[in-house]
């Protein structure tokens, strides 16, 4: 009954890497209310940080297992072949990295390269911290992403949510905390 073939996006991949339950909840449309100042700040950053670049490039592809993949990329610098993703803080760094790798993977699956045939690279921007972090995609990541996408597809078919994380450290920073523990 559940959507067996969800369209999977970068944020969902990031969520899944952090906590499969979070991915499941958001696939169910159980979004947490966007009410915190943190979220408003995030939106503001997104809207105003780099207004002169090309923004929100949409792209889709098909994963090896047939899953539909969609990406909305924050900001691209086509000339230099760099995808950018803007983030507030480094709390979920690893998930940010996977989100960006996912977009690089979409380009790869579409056969998109830079003018000189080199693959695109990624960069996570933390304007508040005045830092950037480069992200690249290698063969291992590609395998890992394919596995992740299949795993997301199978939890989408699950009737009940995956268990809560055993490590609460993540949870205290997670927007879903009250939904899980309230």
């Amino acid at each position, binding site marked *: 009954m559940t959507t067996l073939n969800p369209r999977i996006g970068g944020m969902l991949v990031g969520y899944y890497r952090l906590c499969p339950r979070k991915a499941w909840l958001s696939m169910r*449309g*159980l*979004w947490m209310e966007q009410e915190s100042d943190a979220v408003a700040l995030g939106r503001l950053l997104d809207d105003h940080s780099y207004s002169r670049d090309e923004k929100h490039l949409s792209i889709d592809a098909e994963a090896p297992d047939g899953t539909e993949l969609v990406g909305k990329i924050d900001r691209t610098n086509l000339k230099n072949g760099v995808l950018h993703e803007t983030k507030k803080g480094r709390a979920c760094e690893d998930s940010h990295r996977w989100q960006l790798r996912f977009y690089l993977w979409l380009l790869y699956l579409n056969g998109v390269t830079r003018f000189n045939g080199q693959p695109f690279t990624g960069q996570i921007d933390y304007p508040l911290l005045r830092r950037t972090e480069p992200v690249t995609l290698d063969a291992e990541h590609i395998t890992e992403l394919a596995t992740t996408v299949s795993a997301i597809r199978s939890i989408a078919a699950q009737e*009940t949510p995956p268990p809560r994380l055993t490590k609460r450290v993540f949870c205290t920073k997670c927007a879903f905390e009250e*939904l899980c523990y309230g």
Partner: protein
Amino acid sequence: MKRPHYLFSSGRLRRQHNTLCLERTTGERLPDDAPDDEGLPSAEADGARSPFPVEAVDSLYLFGEIDINSKLVTFLGQQGIPTFFYDYYGNYTATLFPREGQLSGRLRVDQARHYLSAKRRLVLARAFVEAALFNIERVIKYYQPRLAGEKQAAVQATLLELKKDRDALPLTVDIPTLMAVEGRIRDRYYRLWPHFLGPEVAARFPFNKRERRPPSNELNALISFGNSLCYSTVLRQIYRTALDPTIAYLHEPGDRRFSLALDLAEVFKPLLVDRMIFRLLKTGELNPRHFEKYLGGCYLTEAGRKIVVSHWDERLSQTVQHRTMNKKVSYERLIRHECYKLVRHLCDPVGDPYQGFHMWW
């Protein structure tokens, strides 16, 4: 920080750039049952304007006679501000809800599924009554140590009876029986109220039994008004989640009301409404002057309503230390958590069954 806003004055509420503005009128609001062929405002604007920033508004409560137009409705919709209307007598009459904010088709299907299965519905309905009973017992035990003699004996006896009601809960086989048990619990509980209020207050506010439409005396008027505040508070929390407020379990869904708010309000009434009433009456903040009789019913005056509402608002923002989240949460937030617990149950009734909120302090 967004808070509910309660408007007691009459006038015209409008959008003014990106704020809200009440253009006040001086005249008194006329009773809604007074002859009126034109539906025009009862009084002219007197030029007084009270603008207030929309960012600070969580929801609006309109106790006065308020004129609105569709531009305002659109604005409130964009800002996600639910608006609750009250009639001349302080009866809740209508809600203006922004177009649905949160949506989860799948959750709605689950909600309906739990309603359609008699077994699943009963599980949830029982849980609401169980939690209401627990909280009622909590309130009783709070006042018990202050009582002596006959009164103490009455409380003891009631607690024993309530224990029997508790034992009867798992045996209830359908909703009407459950409703009957619930009614019995409330009856027993209300009979103790004169003891809790003490002889002086009880003499000023006599109370025999609960009468709703219309409330027959001051205490009934107060309970009705308090319950309607609780109902709308729960409703505005439900609205912030993906739950459908019309599908309920203890109450019949959808007839006239957002019944899910009635279900959840049961759980919170002892803590939020009943204790507020004792407090307001015992401190003398409310006295018989704050009530008036109309058309065979008894109602709070505007001054009385203001006292209740400001106390209510303050109470909602009181905090307690949360047991599992290791932080302080407000009473109002506890209501939101209750919605989330219900969501968890609907997603996974076996692994994460709903247990209604139990006062833990």
